[in-house]
């Protein structure tokens, strides 16, 4: 990689971190975010079309049948900068609710190190979510580091996410912190079993363990070369068990992604 590009991405990442450090945000359980990001990007000119779906199951109607459906398009601007835009449809938990358009998201992922160059691969994610109904919901700004390390035939990814609500309706003032973790066994390209955990600690200023959502469970990921089309079809599925009283008893997630050179 040319020196100028490498310098440029570090400077850009540092500037973004400093800018976002002036903000604060709240955390909420978002079943649309049950995805663990890798800091490693495929490179410039790679596009992806992605679907993310999730649904909760619980004997308590107040936590049952929450749904999230996202469709997105992403593109590798450079070998260290990937942008993606999402449209989200959601259903609130409980009986009688219907699916509605929830908003749009604009996301950037920055790869800061080359894979294998250091003990851990490092990246950054920054995301802005604009909700469709600002009278009841808040926009959100997310930012955080992405870490990855290979342990033999397994790959461990950890995302830390700081979130701040923006807009006229703020339900959780301040900055909240969440994590996403996955350890995946690279068994075959088409089938890689995994263990995942997603947690939201809530606002940093007043952690409330009883209100936190913690999800943990098995998953699998893999990819297939289509042959008749350029690129690969990838999947990421899982079932997550709720570990706290605030968490839904179960959440199923399905992610499908078509990645291709553009």
């Amino acid at each position, binding site marked *: 990689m040319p020196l100028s590009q490498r310098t440029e991405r570090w400077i850009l990442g540092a500037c973004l971190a400093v800018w976002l450090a002036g903000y604060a945000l709240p955390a909420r359980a978002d079943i649309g975010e049950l995805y663990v990001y890798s800091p490693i990007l495929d490179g410039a000119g790679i596009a992806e079309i992605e679907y993310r779906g999730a649904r909760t199951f619980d004997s308590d109607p107040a936590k049952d049948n929450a749904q999230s459906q996202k469709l997105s398009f992403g593109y*590798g601007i450079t070998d260290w900068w990937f942008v993606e835009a999402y449209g989200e449809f959601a259903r609130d938990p409980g009986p009688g609710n219907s699916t509605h358009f929830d908003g749009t998201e604009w996301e950037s992922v920055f790869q800061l190190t080359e894979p294998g*160059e250091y003990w851990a691969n490092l990246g950054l994610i920054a995301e802005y979510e604009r909700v469709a109904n600002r009278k009841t919901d808040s926009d959100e700004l997310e930012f955080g580091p992405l870490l990855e390390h290979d342990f033999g035939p397994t790959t461990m990814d950890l995302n830390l996410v700081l979130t701040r609500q923006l807009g006229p309706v703020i339900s959780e003032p301040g900055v909240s912190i969440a994590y996403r973790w996955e350890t995946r066994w690279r068994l075959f390209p088409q089938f890689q079993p995994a263990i995942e955990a997603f947690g939201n600690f809530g606002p940093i200023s007043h952690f409330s363990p009883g209100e936190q959502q913690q999800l943990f469970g098995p998953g699998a990921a893999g990819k297939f070369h289509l042959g008749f089309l350029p690129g690969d079809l990838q999947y990421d599925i899982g079932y997550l068990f709720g570990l706290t009283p605030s968490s839904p008893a179960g959440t199923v997630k399905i992610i499908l992604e078509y990645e291709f050179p553009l």
Partner: protein
Amino acid sequence: MRALLLALTVSLLASAANADDPQLVIKDHKFQPERLEVPAGVKFKLMVRNNDPTAEEFESFQLNREKVVPPGKEIPVFLGPLDRGEYPFFGDFHQDTAKGVLVAK
């Protein structure tokens, strides 16, 4: 600040190609050489150059690497330490012709 600049400089120099780095060249949608010996037990940097007018993606499930090589460009692929053995790789955009294997000795 000086420490930060020093760390950045060291990091940048670490990415620069050395004459001793093993190298692969993509030409006519094939890797040259298709069989390349690399050192076992140490970290090393594999340089992959694409001499074709179209992009290729260097990919290896065994090495857990996947990266686009733009046309006319060269990329570093950091690998190792590898156990002795053979590690297949391929070009994801031309899988029928772009194949090869690294032999760690």
